[in-house]
């Protein structure tokens, strides 16, 4: 009974800590006021989206090397959470852009590269849903997951390689920097836990399907 409650309680505590840091510890920014607090969520989910993509690619490579279905489940779980985080990144970025730059969207290099990553994630799930054979699905989607990682350096280096409006090394108040670190740490732990839970769920689904198939034959 208690074990069932540990994960949701831990996740709620992480979110509560992040919210406390963002809304209480962080000082109010002079120019943008409270709207600036979006950045603590935006940076955290952007980092989680990129990390999700890297984990998806790394576990896909592990699947191609070992051929253990568990690696494919890790890859799928990381992809799903990476996609969710990239969606949140685009949404929070758009809100920020409306307040800071007076536009909902601009074809800025990092924004464009992030949108491309979002579409690649969507394509990854389309491929997965198009293949019934689990082995073939895992193999082909692993190849695609590794290709998707090629977009990550573009997002990270976009502001250095191309002229964009994202800051390269933003100057921040030490308390703001601390809150940003707390937020990134909390959301990373939050999404890592969700990936682990989802991976466990996918393992159980595969196990149940195998049992059903065995009972039919």
């Amino acid at each position: 009974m208690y074990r069932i409650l540990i994960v949701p309680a831990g996740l709620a505590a992480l979110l509560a800590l992040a919210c406390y840091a963002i809304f209480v510890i962080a000082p109010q920014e002079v120019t943008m006021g409270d709207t600036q607090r979006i950045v603590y969520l935006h940076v955290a989910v952007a980092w989680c989206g990129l990390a999700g993509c890297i984990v998806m690619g790394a576990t896909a490579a592990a699947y191609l090397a070992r051929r253990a279905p568990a690696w494919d489940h890790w890859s799928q779980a990381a992809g799903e959470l990476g996609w969710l985080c990239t969606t949140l990144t685009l949404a929070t970025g758009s809100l920020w852009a409306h307040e800071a730059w007076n536009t909902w969207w601009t074809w800025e290099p990092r924004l464009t590269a992030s949108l491309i990553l979002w579409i690649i994630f969507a394509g990854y799930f389309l491929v997965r849903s198009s293949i019934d054979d689990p082995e073939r699905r895992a193999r082909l989607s692993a190849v695609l997951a590794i290709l998707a990682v090629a977009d990550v350096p573009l997002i990270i280096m976009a502001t250095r390689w191309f002229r964009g409006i994202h800051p390269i090394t933003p100057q921040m108040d030490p308390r703001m920097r601390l809150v940003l670190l707390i937020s990134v740490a909390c959301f990373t732990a939050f999404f890592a836990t969700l990936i682990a839970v989802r991976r466990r769920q996918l393992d159980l689904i595969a196990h149940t399907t195998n049992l059903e198939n065995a009972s039919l034959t």
Partner: protein
Amino acid sequence: MNSITNFARTCSWLVHKDLLRELRAPRVWPTMLLLGMILSLAVEMQIELPRDQKQKVLGGLMWLVIFFAWTVVLNRLFAGERDESCWQALLLYPVTLGMIYLAKLVVNFLALAAIEALLVPALMILADVPLLARAGPFLAILVAANLGLAAVGTLVSSLTSGLTRQASLLVVLVLPLASPVVIGAGQATVALLGGDPTSSFRWLQLLSVFAAVFVGLGLLLFEFIIEE
């Protein structure tokens, strides 16, 4: 040295096979070229701008036209092998999967070169844009972009070949994966037309990196796609 010669000879035979089949029974190349012409006409008719402003948009639009016309070839790149059950026979020959990948990449590269051979003069005449004013750098952009597009296109085409929603999946996957190449090629062309060779060279360097990365990834991952 001998092994490199054998590798190149085998690849050239595989390329020869694909080109000969297309020559004997043209299936996709005429459609691709016609689609390229129609798209370029449609683009040209929509742009009513002075010549100097037209140069700023045509570089990017040209690459979009090339990309969408080229997807016709991509759709059928591996279909010949699948439709006529040639795939198993091909795999029985003493050729490595790397050779097959490189041969398909070369066919893709040649298809892109064919579209460009038609579209570049057509756009120069129709839109009055001096695409060949700096022929050397422009050809370098074409080669680097073609290599990047062909590398990623060959890989994705083999990946989607035989899937239920192949045609739609192919475009959905290729466009985002190849978008750094399409954007880079467009920007390099626009910078070159705008008289900014330094910026164009920077984009060309980036295109070369993309091409090298995608060819490397293709050689590495192709064997995992072609297993059955």
